[in-house]
């Protein structure tokens, strides 16, 4: 009977030695399913393989591991190729750990790939604020809010759509009054003036959900 760590070593070895794209994908799903923090370095490595199927599996694995994967993801962000960075940011957005705030802000503001700005914008709205020290919450939320209000003017419709989704989620997390009061007018502007009906409709859906409260 193999010990737990020998089993994990075999799963990691299978990822490293797979000899086809499909073989890698399968091995990564198996490694992700082990849900073992010791798999994190390998899963992050896979994000840079230029194999979208494998990256989806590795991202899923990292997201289900959750906050334990955050330090390694943040640490390795810059050491990787562009594709890997994009996947890592997606993972960070999905894990919802507020330690990723600065990275998400920077990405939503300035990344050249719209799919990454899109993921960051949605992620900014859904950070788990309760993980921050109470004294830090308000300024962090203000930064997320300011960034999202800028992102509803992004040139790409899908980033604006994601920013609306982020704002809607943030509105639900913020205490009434104060900052939260900026969200409704921002969404109303989108409904009135955005050139893309899908974005207008998403903003309307967010406003409708406020009305029901």
């Amino acid at each position, binding site marked *: 009977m193999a010990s737990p760590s020998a089993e994990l070593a075999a799963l990691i070895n299978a990822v490293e030695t797979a000899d086809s794209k499909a073989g890698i994908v399968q091995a990564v799903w198996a490694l992700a399913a082990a849900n073992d923090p010791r798999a994190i370095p390998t899963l992050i490595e896979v994000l840079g393989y230029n194999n979208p199927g494998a990256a989806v599996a590795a991202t899923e694995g990292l997201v289900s591991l959750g906050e334990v994967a955050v330090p390694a993801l943040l640490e390795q962000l810059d050491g990787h190729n562009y594709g890997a960075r994009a996947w890592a940011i997606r993972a960070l957005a999905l894990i919802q750990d507020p330690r990723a705030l600065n990275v998400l802000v920077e990405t939503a503001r300035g990344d050249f790939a719209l799919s990454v700005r899109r993921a960051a*914008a949605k992620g900014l709205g859904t950070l788990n604020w309760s993980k921050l020290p109470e004294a830090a919450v308000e300024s962090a939320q203000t930064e997320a809010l300011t960034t999202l209000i800028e992102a509803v003017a992004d040139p790409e419709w899908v980033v604006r*759509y994601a920013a609306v*989704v982020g704002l809607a989620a943030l509105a639900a997390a913020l205490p009434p009054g104060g900052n939260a009061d900026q969200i409704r007018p921002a969404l109303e502007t989108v409904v009135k003036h955005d050139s893309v009906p*899908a974005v207008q*409709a998403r903003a*309307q*859906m967010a406003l*409708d959900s406020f009305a029901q409260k």
Partner: protein
Amino acid sequence: MVLESQQLVNAQGEALTVDQAISNLRQTADPSLRYYAAWWLGRFRVRDGAAIAALVEALKDETDRAPDGGYPLRRNAARALGKLGDRTVVPALMGCLSCPDYYVREAAIQALEMLGDDVCVPALRAMLAGGIEAATQVEGKPHLVQPYNAILEALGSLGARAAVEEVAPFLDHPVPQVQNAAARAMYQLTGDAAYCNRLVQVLQGPNLQLRRSAMMDLGAVGYLPAAGAIAATLAENSLKLIALQGVLEHHLQATDFPESSLSSEARQVMALMDDLL
């Protein structure tokens, strides 16, 4: 939008003005400047009379030739004219339908589809002459004798109901992409959901290229019942979002949004989109 002025900067960070672009297009010394100017005028929707005249002129260009004998500038000029929304160029684009360059014909058909003037329908139907027996591969080229996908899609978008009998046989063309294009057109021409359900079947198939093309077809015709299948198919989220945007916006238009409130179907499509961001 506020960002309009930033978008006028090209990928290399160089700004062109409308006048520069038009004069770049008119000169003949540097073909790459002309090619880029034609794209730029379309990209930034320059609906200026002089720009349109220069693009129409470029449809007859003889100087910019590809190694295979093609006409790269003509292709770009046709694509740009499709984006400018000026129907006075329709006769000039129809003149391109007999160009020896397959890609010029394809670009012209797509431009005619975008301009939405059904005066080109008889000419497009004529390009289907001979049916699927005539629709064979050109030897040594990666394409069929005509750009059938573009022809079928244009006939569908233009609502050319008279063409149903010529379009239907292409459902059985040996090239799956052509079958997809025919199914999409048949749905637009007849409203029969069975044709879209063929495309939904493709979404469960093993071929990524075909899944992508079926998804974009379903988005383009706005087939609402396919929304769940689009969200679930194995393909890139970016493309799924574009296809679902098509489905959503088609439905929004049909339900008179924003004058009327959002339907529960619209909310469901947006919930699917939210999960793909």
